[in-house]
């Protein structure tokens, strides 16, 4: 039971990343490595502000804003300075490593015994007795659902239509007299804001910031998105955000099973990379088969 709760908690926190990566990778076709920096950025901003005595909810909003600015940077580097997509992300990610250290102050910052969105007078009185063990999970769930509904809503707006169009066929966006560059930037801003939100929630759940926590974020996000989309491929009515959330939880479940069967936590990045490779290859085979059918 504890393991199930832990999988759901971790899976849901990473589901926010998966939704962000869905925007960049799937909608924009942009391999955005800046998320490896914006995830710890969200955590760094959160621990710094909570340590300084700020309300954890406000700290979370500040993290979202910080992530949005980082996404803006990647977008401007790519669109205005015409640097290749992959490199733009690497530049932002590298710069963020130093920036995150500056914001947090040092490589490892604990926030034990400080108020968080999980641990404050309001939530503690709200979730007492039998509900107490599920408090963290329920709060994470609420955050994820709010993020999902907002993203679903956005993708149905005029601006959201253009975002989907620019990844699908940029020529159409130009034909619609809109600048495809600015739309790409908007997509990167939203994606990185989501990833930083995930970092903020994670820092508050595990009660510390650690500079290495971002390594491999993009791979985990991509793996979750691809698992989710492949799983729901046959059900066209499923919202991609839902697929991303389910994919993320499944991914974390796979990882948890691997650990129970004796893999050390230090092997995790290797397992992640191999798992991701398998998913990519399987996904590609299916695509080419579909083309052959057509």
């Amino acid at each position, binding site marked *: 039971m504890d393991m199930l709760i832990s999988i759901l908690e971790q899976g849901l926190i990473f589901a926010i990343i998966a939704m962000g990566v869905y925007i960049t990778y799937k909608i924009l076709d942009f391999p955005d490595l800046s998320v490896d920096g914006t995830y710890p950025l969200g955590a760094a901003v959160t621990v710094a502000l909570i340590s300084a005595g700020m309300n954890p909810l406000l700290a979370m909003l500040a993290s979202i804003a910080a992530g949005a600015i980082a996404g803006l940077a990647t977008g401007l580097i790519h669109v205005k300075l015409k640097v290749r997509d992959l490199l733009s992300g690497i530049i932002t990610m590298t710069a963020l490593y130093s920036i995150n250290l500056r914001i947090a102050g040092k490589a490892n910052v604990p926030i034990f015994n400080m108020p968080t969105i999980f641990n404050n007078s309001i939530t503690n009185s709200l979730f007492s007795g039998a509900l107490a063990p599920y408090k963290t999970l329920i709060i994470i769930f609420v955050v994820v659902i709010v993020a999902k509904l907002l993203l679903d809503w956005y993708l149905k707006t*005029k601006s959201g239509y253009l975002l989907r*169009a620019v990844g*699908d*066929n940029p020529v*159409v966006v*130009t*034909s*619609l007299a809109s*600048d495809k560059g600015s739309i790409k930037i908007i997509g990167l801003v939203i994606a990185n804001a989501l990833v930083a939100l995930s970092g903020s929630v994670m820092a508050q759940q595990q009660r510390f910031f650690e500079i290495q926590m971002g390594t491999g974020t993009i791979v985990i996000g991509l793996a979750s998105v691809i698992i989710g989309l492949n799983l729901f491929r046959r059900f066209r009515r499923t919202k991609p955000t839902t697929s991303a959330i389910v994919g993320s939880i499944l991914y974390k479940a796979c990882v948890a099973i691997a650990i129970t069967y004796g893999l050390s936590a230090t092997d995790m990045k290797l397992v992640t990379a191999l798992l991701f490779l398998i998913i990519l290859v399987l996904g590609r085979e299916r695509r080419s088969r579909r083309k052959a059918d057509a």
Partner: protein
Amino acid sequence: MLDLKHISKIYNPGTINKTCIFQDFNLSINSGEFVSVVGSNGSGKTSMLNIICGTIDVDAGDILINGENITSMPDFKRHRRIGRVYQNPAMGTCSEMTILENMSMADNKGKPFSLTPGTNKKRIPYYREILQQLDLGLEDKLDTLVGSLSGGQRQALAVIMSTMTDIDFLILDEHTAALDPRIAETVMELTDKIVREKGVTTIMVTHNLRYATMYGNRLIMMHQGKIVLDKSDSGKEATSVTDLLGLFNAISIECGN
């Protein structure tokens, strides 16, 4: 009124692959004209369209719309007044979006793409009505992904999308070339009908000499970046497919092909 004045364009300058597309190219198109452009491959037809739309920059010369110089205007801004249909039916529509979503976007061209709902439900009957005219059954498939339509259906949709809002110019880049003869006919008739109804100035590049003589009120033949034939109204009506073929052959022999 569209003016191309003293246009020069060289691809790969300073290399062994240097290709001069245009040298002091001039063309003037009056409002309301429907110009058919024919010419062999590499004669500069598509390059001319790309120059008008801003897809490629010119090395020298000016592009004017109604007297306003748009040479340095970015492509997406020019498209506020230009609608364009490409040879490849996939270019004019978004395959991962539904017919309704595609049409909603086209309907909103020129207005801000804000945070209001992407589809205006009140416009759906109007979209259905436009699609009905095509007689392709698309009006009952509004929620179908465009990617699952046939090339002809996609191209018909692309023609409609490019002309949904008020535009000054319609640019057709061999837009029936990739379609089977029957659907090509449908798309061409649809195009002609829309052009007549809206009175929009149209430039149509085509390899189909019959279409070139049948449609429009001005005919231009291009060769090696120059205009070798330019007939309007009665002059155009007197030009037959055989005349064009004759001229084509004469030019080709001259080049040693």
